[in-house]
């Protein structure tokens, strides 16, 4: 069985239906790109999978490792290995990055019945992971995302992914707003985390990120449904032709 199976998923926000029957299967070890025009429901899919309380599932199901994902609370999903890299990472004033990460790691370890990491052990681990995203250690004593540039926030998301080692990672427009150096660093971090036991979903508007990270499959989301799936060449086709031709084709 695939790690993630989404079947006929309908999701509403404030009584407005955004996802209208999404079917998507992502096995462990694969990277899938979900592309689509603005307003197609990409971020809704990402947020709903992470368990944001504003998104209501009205129909369909999501199986994660064979279990009903939508029945789990947000923190339970995270502890079971689901990770969302936010499109707009939230600033948490007064809570240092290092403390936040340590609390997260230990919450997840406790859930798995593992021993807590002490401060020294954690710092060693953190230093090693910081290299994945070429981040300076000074970021760790700063408040979570507070005063970070757009690129720094996105790198911080990838750092969190590297530290938490999820089984299913969903990256919501992690490439948007990045300059070319930041994009290279973020992509490098994603590549380093490619693993036979890990599935990744890259939600993106542009093909740009896919120059650096090669997806196994590309899906196009329009009007709340996956309207086409293909290999990495589909991304290039979208880049060349835009989304309009698909709209006409599927209308």
């Amino acid at each position, binding site marked *: 069985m695939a790690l993630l199976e989404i079947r006929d998923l309908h999701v509403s926000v404030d009584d407005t239906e955004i996802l209208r029957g999404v079917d998507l299967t992502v096995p462990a070890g694969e990277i899938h790109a979900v592309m689509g025009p603005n307003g197609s429901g990409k971020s809704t899919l990402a947020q709903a999978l*992470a*368990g*944001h*309380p504003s998104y209501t599932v009205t129909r369909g199901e999501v199986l994660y490792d064979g279990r009903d994902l939508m029945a789990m*609370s*947000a*923190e339970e*999903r*995270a*502890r079971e290995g689901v*990770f*969302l890299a*936010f499109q707009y*990472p*939230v600033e*948490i*004033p*007064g*809570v*240092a990055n*290092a*403390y*936040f990460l*340590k*609390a*997260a790691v230990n*919450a*997840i370890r*406790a*859930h798995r019945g593992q021993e807590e990491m002490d*401060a020294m052990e954690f*710092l060693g681990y953190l230093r090693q992971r910081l290299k994945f995203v070429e981040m300076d*250690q000074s970021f*760790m*004593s700063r*408040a979570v995302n507070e005063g970070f540039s757009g690129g720094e926030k996105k790198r911080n998301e990838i750092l*969190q992914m590297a530290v*938490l080692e999820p089984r299913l990672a969903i990256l919501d427009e992690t490439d948007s707003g990045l300059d070319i150096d930041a994009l290279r660093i973020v992509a490098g971090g994603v590549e380093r985390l490619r693993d036979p036991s890990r599935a990744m979903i890259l939600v993106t508007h542009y093909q740009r990120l896919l120059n650096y990270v090669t997806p196994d499959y590309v899906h196009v989301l329009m009007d709340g449904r996956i309207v086409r799936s293909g290999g990495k060449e589909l991304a290039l086709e979208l880049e060349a032709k835009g989304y309009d031709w698909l709209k006409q084709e599927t209308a």
Partner: protein
Amino acid sequence: MTAPPVTRHPVSEKDQYLQAIATLAGQRDAAEPVWLARLRNVAADRFRRLRFPTIHDEEWKYTSVAPILRGSFTSPPGGAPATVSNDDVGKTIVDTDGPRLVFVDGRYVAELSRPVTGSAEMVATLPHGVDADPDTIEAHLGRLATTADNIFSALNTALLSDCGVIVVPRGVVLDEPIQLVFVSALDHAAIAPRMLVVLGAASAATIVETYVSLGSPEAFTNAVAEIVVGEGATLSHFRVVDEAEGTVHIGRTEVRQGSDGAYESLTVFASAALGRHDLAVHLDGPGATCTLNGLTLARGSQHLDSHTLIEHAAPHGVSRQLYKGILADHARVVFNGKIVVRPGADGTDARQANQSILLSREATVDTKPQLEIFADDVRCTHGATVGQLDPEMIFYLESRGIGEDAARTLLTYGFASELIRDIAHAEIRRYLARLVTRRVRSGEADALPETLDFVFQV
């Protein structure tokens, strides 16, 4: 506050205190200076004439002192003082080897105290202490915390006996914080803590004033502090009220600053069933600066009221004020921040902010800025915000595996930490981080460590 007329309440409300005042008068040391006896007598006389405030008095409209009038507090506790060990004290205050004066139920306890090293002076009992530096004490004691229109200060002064006095001579810079610790241990005791801090010109010091309880006595603490910051002197002042939850705490702090003096305070109001703190800072000399920070942590049915007054009386004064409140359950918090800019105090720059977080629907905050400006070229701003924890922040933490209770605790701590993270003295910072962590912890968050201060050690 205008002087209220003759007693309207039944005399019995004051009887217990009047008796205590009379007892104390009978025990006086014959050697005590005349001015000290006069100071007490005048205060006793005023206490007799003044009445306790009611919510019909503008300055007390949010806070009823009825619990003090109803409570059967005895003052001052006679007989042997409660037995308090060094360990008991160490656990409740900033744990350093530095100098400290410890008072238990209003009485100075030499065995628990440690002298200040170097050239500052520290005395704890009157009248004997008066010999140490009679002129300085006479010049300042009772001059700032006047009793003409304040019944609580009148009562405190009428009962004046043991008093923490710190005198830092001109040019002396003390690196080590000096602690003044006021412990309440006896149930139903009315205690009248008193302190006087005088910083000579160009001196510098850090003072930590702590009110704590041993056990859970229901006491009435009526504290008065007078502080003089000399020309070009720098005082960093921490005032922490962490007494038992049944305590009634009335506190008054009066600060006078000379030219170019700098006064910085952090007031942490964490306990008391009913609490009121009046902090008045008078910037008397040109170029004086003050930073008044406050953190009020209220839960249950606590009622904590902070009144501040910043008086810009000379040109080019700078004042900065940030008071934060964290309210849970049915708690009520009051912040009344008054800034007065006197004629001639041109070029004054005053900023005030009050921020509150309500953790429950039943908590209430009353916030009231008052600006009175009579000078030119003045910059005066104020702002107040009241909010809840941001659900997007909670979700962000949950999406990383942190449980809801722990997420709320972390965010609440984060809100408070702005006032703590930059404290230069590591022991004071850790002490306050622990205190705040203990107070903001909820539910599952018990799994969090004793202090969230890990933050600062990376």
